[in-house]
């Protein structure tokens, strides 16, 4: 998954220092794989270049005087990212989770994220179902495999949708 | 697709199709409905046959009664004399016959002329004679039995009847007839009998109606689900109603068939079981055509109406069934209003006309009675609701039953309301009957036999010596009664010769010594003057003359308007001899009896019949009930048994139906490890609680009804506790039997297989 939209999304809640940003990310999405500090700076540099964030220099001589803030272009980039369904593929959940949490943090409708994704999944499932009906047994078996995986994802989406209230409470806590 | 509508016949046909093709459970349901309705139909046909049975009985009895009386003996005349005699608690009626010529008539069912001493018996009496107790009867009716009376001479197969040939009859002590058969007498019924019949009939018809209503509802839940499926396919409410009607009609027609068959079976089975006093021929058990047609029309119509009303309480929607019962609150006021109005209707004539006023306002009373009895059925659901809400939880089985009843008591109520109405009316009839016959036997409580010897010329003297040797005979008093003609002009007077003891016994006079002559006459009566000379017997019969002595005492009679008569003690008669010879002359022999002696009356009656079969014997037994009362009691018992059978069948099938529908939860309970004993007990409680509540209500209302009816018919007010006990006990036994009969079914539905669906 790409961490850029996630970091952008986190900045939408307020300007942060680089180290803060890493901590916030780890806390919410890092789980047992914390982000390398260098990765944060590299990503920030790219976002800065693209004009999605800007840097506020703070007076003083500390090691970390740079504070990142999101630009209007960055905000619309986050919005676009949230409303764009992911390509249905395995291990999508961490990306989707990140999206839902950021939607909650940035005041977007999290169910929109889920429903958009669901529609995308179903679109693919329809296609597979159609292909299955037209294809031979090998096609059918291959399609069924994909369908079952997609169905599992969809179930997860459904479950997450059902637990959004709980999630919102913990995110905002 | 053109939006059309199916026709009504097509809807009915569809319903018919659905009801006959339900597979095993469908047939079981149809069988239950048909059986239930069949029992109801059979009962209705039985009631519809009562008029025919009573009419044919009366006709047969009239046809064999002595017909045209003639004065002169002839070639075609017959002397007959009716006699009655007791066999155990049953009454045997017989005729002494004595042909006076070759063309003398034969009674119906008798195919031969009986020589003196020959007897012809009904088969039932023959059976009694052949049984061990027949020994006591040896020789009571002639010397030899020469055959049996054919069925056309009997009102029923159980009738005890005998014809005995004799040569001792004369025109004086018998009827001389030239044929048999008289017009049927229209006795008319008195108010009490009518009331009893009405209460009995209401008590009989209400449970049968309830039974029919219950039977039609069998499988109701499955039917509702089925109709919902049809509704989903596009049937509107009216179509659904017609389909349901079609289904019900199949059950109703099946019920008519089963009922007809049951009725035919009853014609064969019932007559031998009916006591002799009520016996009738199976062939005479024919419903009145109009009533039978009414049953055939009304039962299907009523079934359809019940189905429609049952459907009113559910909304059959395409998605399934919504029961409205959950929102039905049992409102008390109108349930109370119906019996109260009934009570008021019954009390109105009492309050305005006093006791004994029911004879004139039977319509009002009948309406009130029906309302009161229907009110019982209406009050029961409310009472049961209140009761089960108040009952405290206890053992597991009790809790299961209680919760079930609290959840839904409608089914239980339907099954029990029939019991309640019938028990209430039975208690009422028992009460009426108990009051009507509260003092059986003779009034002064003496155990005695009285022989009326009307053989011309007999002074009864031979009886004392002949009967004195019988064990249990404690004393014999003989009185001779004659009509004395004055030698000169004047009125004849009745004259009784007898001992002082018999005089004080019969008149209430306190003093009497042998040699006394007493005039029993009211003070202002025209009494014969002392010195008047009478002929003691028919003029020209060789009887002596006798004059009223001067010292004749006058005694007040018991009844002030009775005609004067003379009582003469033997010594006062002097040399005069009384020869009883007139139509109304006879010797009266009173025999005091001892209860301790075994079968004393049977021995005595046999001995008397052997001495003189023409003598009439009346037994006054203060401890015995009269055979008429026995008959009514037996009839009532029969009715009670029939009703309780209906009630038991009702309880059985409704609970069976309920068990079948609750197969799954019961199986789950059993799978949980709830023991069958607990489930069985819960079924028992489930049946018993409504029955107990119902019986309590029934006894209260029935007793009240009895008291009102007694007052209305001017009878002494009393309650027949034994009758209440028997009826209530019988109902309790029915509950137990029904539960016991359900246990195998309970075992089947609680098998783990019950967990699986269809």
């Amino acid at each position: 998954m790409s961490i850029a939209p996630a970091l952008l999304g986190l900045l939408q809640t307020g300007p942060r220092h680089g180290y803060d940003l890493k901590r916030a990310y780890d806390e919410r999405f890092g789980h047992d794989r914390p982000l390398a500090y260098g990765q944060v700076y590299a990503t920030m540099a790219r976002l800065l270049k693209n004009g999605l964030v800007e840097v506020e220099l703070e007076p003083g001589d500390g090691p970390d005087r740079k504070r990142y803030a999101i630009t209007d272009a960055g905000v619309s980039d986050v919005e676009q990212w949230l409303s764009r369904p992911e390509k249905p593929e395995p291990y999508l959940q961490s990306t989707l989770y990140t999206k839902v949490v950021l939607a909650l943090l940035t005041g977007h409708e999290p169910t929109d994220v889920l429903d958009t994704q669901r529609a995308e999944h179903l679109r693919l499932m329809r296609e597979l179902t159609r292909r299955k009906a037209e294809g031979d047994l090998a096609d059918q078996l291959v399609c069924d495999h994909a369908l079952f995986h997609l169905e599992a994802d969809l179930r997860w989406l459904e479950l997450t949708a059902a637990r959004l209230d709980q999630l919102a409470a913990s995110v905002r806590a | 697709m053109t939006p059309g509508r199916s026709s009504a016949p097509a809807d009915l046909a569809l319903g018919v199709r659905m009801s006959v093709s339900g597979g095993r459970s469908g047939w079981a349901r149809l069988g239950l409905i048909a059986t239930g309705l069949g029992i109801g139909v059979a009962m209705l046909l039985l009631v519809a046959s009562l008029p025919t049975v009573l009419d044919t009985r009366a006709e047969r009895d009239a046809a064999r009664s002595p017909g045209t009386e003639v004065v002169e003996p002839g070639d075609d005349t017959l002397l007959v004399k009716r006699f009655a005699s007791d066999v155990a608690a049953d009454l045997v009626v017989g005729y002494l016959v004595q042909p006076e010529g070759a063309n003398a008539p034969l009674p119906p069912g008798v195919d031969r002329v009986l020589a003196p001493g020959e007897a012809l018996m009904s088969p039932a009496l023959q059976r009694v004679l052949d049984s061990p107790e027949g020994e006591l009867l040896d020789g009571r009716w002639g010397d030899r039995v020469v055959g049996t009376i054919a069925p056309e001479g009997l009102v029923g197969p159980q009738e005890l009847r005998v014809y005995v040939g004799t040569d001792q009859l004369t025109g004086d002590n018998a009827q001389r007839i030239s044929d048999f058969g008289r017009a049927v007498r229209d006795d008319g019924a008195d108010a009490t009998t009518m009331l009893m019949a009405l209460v009995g009939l209401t008590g009989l018809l209400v449970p049968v109606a309830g039974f029919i209503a219950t039977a039609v509802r069998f499988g109701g839940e499955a039917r509702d689900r089925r109709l919902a499926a049809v509704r989903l396919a596009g049937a509107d409410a009216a179509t659904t109603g017609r389909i349901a009607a079609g289904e019900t009609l199949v059950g109703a027609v099946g019920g008519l068939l089963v009922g007809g068959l049951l009725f035919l079976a009853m014609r064969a089975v019932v007559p031998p079981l009916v006591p002799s006093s009520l016996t009738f021929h199976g062939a005479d058990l024919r419903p009145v055509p109009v009533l039978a047609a009414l049953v055939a029309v009304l039962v299907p119509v009523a079934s359809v109406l019940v189905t429609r009303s049952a459907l009113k309480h559910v909304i059959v929607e395409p998605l399934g069934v919504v029961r409205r019962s959950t929102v039905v609150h049992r409102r008390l006021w109108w349930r109370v209003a119906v019996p109260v109005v009934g009570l008021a209707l019954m009390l109105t004539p009492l309050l305005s006309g006093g006791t004994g006023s029911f004879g004139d306002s039977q319509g009002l009373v009948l309406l009130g009675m029906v309302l009161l009895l229907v009110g019982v059925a209406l009050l029961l659901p409310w009472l049961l609701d209140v009761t089960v809400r108040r009952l405290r939880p206890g053992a597991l089985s009790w809790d299961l039953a209680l919760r079930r009843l609290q959840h839904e008591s409608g089914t239980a109520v339907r099954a029990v309301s029939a019991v309640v109405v019938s028990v209430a009316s039975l208690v009422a009839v028992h009460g009426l009957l108990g009051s009507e016959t509260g003092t059986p036997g003779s009034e002064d409580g003496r155990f005695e036999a009285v022989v009326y010897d009307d053989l011309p010329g007999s002074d009864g003297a031979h009886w004392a010596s002949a009967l004195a040797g019988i064990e249990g005979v404690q004393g014999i008093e003989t009185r001779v009664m004659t009509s004395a003609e004055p030698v000169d002009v004047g009125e004849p007077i009745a004259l009784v010769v007898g001992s002082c003891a018999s005089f004080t016994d019969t008149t209430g006079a306190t003093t009497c010594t042998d040699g006394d002559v007493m005039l029993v006459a009211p003070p202002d009566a025209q009494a014969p003057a002392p010195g008047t000379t009478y002929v003691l017997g028919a003029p020209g019969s060789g009887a002596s003359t006798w004059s009223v002595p001067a010292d004749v005492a006058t005694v007040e009679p018991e009844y002030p308007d009775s005609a004067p008569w003379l009582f003469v003690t033997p010594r006062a008669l002097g040399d005069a001899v009384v020869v009883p010879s007139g139509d109304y002359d006879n010797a009266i022999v009173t025999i005091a009896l001892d209860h301790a002696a075994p079968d004393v009356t049977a021995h005595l009656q046999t001995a008397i019949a052997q001495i003189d079969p023409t003598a009439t014997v009346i037994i006054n037994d203060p401890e015995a009930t009269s055979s008429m009362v026995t008959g009514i009691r037996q009839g009532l018992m029969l009715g009670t048994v029939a009703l309780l059978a209906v009630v038991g069948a009702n309880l059985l099938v409704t609970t069976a139906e309920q068990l079948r529908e609750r197969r799954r939860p019961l199986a789950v309970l059993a799978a949980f490890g709830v023991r069958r004993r607990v489930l069985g007990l819960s079924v028992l409680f489930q049946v018993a609680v409504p029955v107990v509540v119902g019986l309590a209500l029934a006894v209260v209302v029935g007793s009240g009804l009895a008291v009102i009816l007694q007052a209305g018919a001017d009878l002494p007010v009393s309650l027949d506790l034994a009758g209440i006990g028997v009826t209530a006990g019988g109902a309790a036994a029915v509950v137990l039997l029904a539960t016991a009969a359900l246990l195998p079914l309970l075992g089947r539905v609680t098998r783990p297989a019950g967990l699986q669906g269809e």
Partner: protein
Amino acid sequence: MTTAPVTTGPGAVIPSSGPLLVARDLHVEFGPTTALAGASLEVHGGEVLALMGPSGSGKSTLLHCLAGILRPDSGTVAFDGRDVTAMSDAERSALRRSEFGFVFQFGQLVPELTCVENVALPLRLAGVTRRDAHRTAREWLDRLEVPDIADKRPGQVSGGQGQRAAVARALITRPRVVFADEPTGALDSLNGERVMQLFVAAAKDTGAAVVLVTHEARVAAYSDREAVVRDGRVREQVPA
């Protein structure tokens, strides 16, 4: 003004302009629970629409409202321009007979009737003679690949076979809309898929729109479009 030729012959699709079935702002409450809180939906002629959503979201209630089985507390349902919510029971029954078909998870076949009788039931309710109705019913059972169950009762056939009979019964009147509530809910996946294939193909052939309530994505994948019901409202999406 030209009108498209409308035929009701076999296999004909009725071309439609505009939605066939329109629900607007439906509210339904069952006692204290709210089943629908302002649900709106459009169903177009000939389309297969999947109604998805978690249990208790109100999707079945919505289906029942659309089919005229349930009358909403407020809001309207219009079928072909006619207000279904204002119809009498008889009119709605007539609609169910002629324009609608139903396939439910269970409980829709009459256990007392044979399968062919069950399939023929709507025709007979519409006044078709027994002979004609049965002939058509047998054709439909053939088409759904279960000719053998015709004379068996629902209790004697498998779940999949029963559902095919139910599909045949729903389509026999060539309805404009078939309402299906978890039609494969009681079937294993292989059977369920086959039933769905046959169902959707037959519906497409007759031109019937299908409103399909399901919580199974693989069943919903047979639809042209899905609508998600959540908290009594419809979140409609057009396929990407």
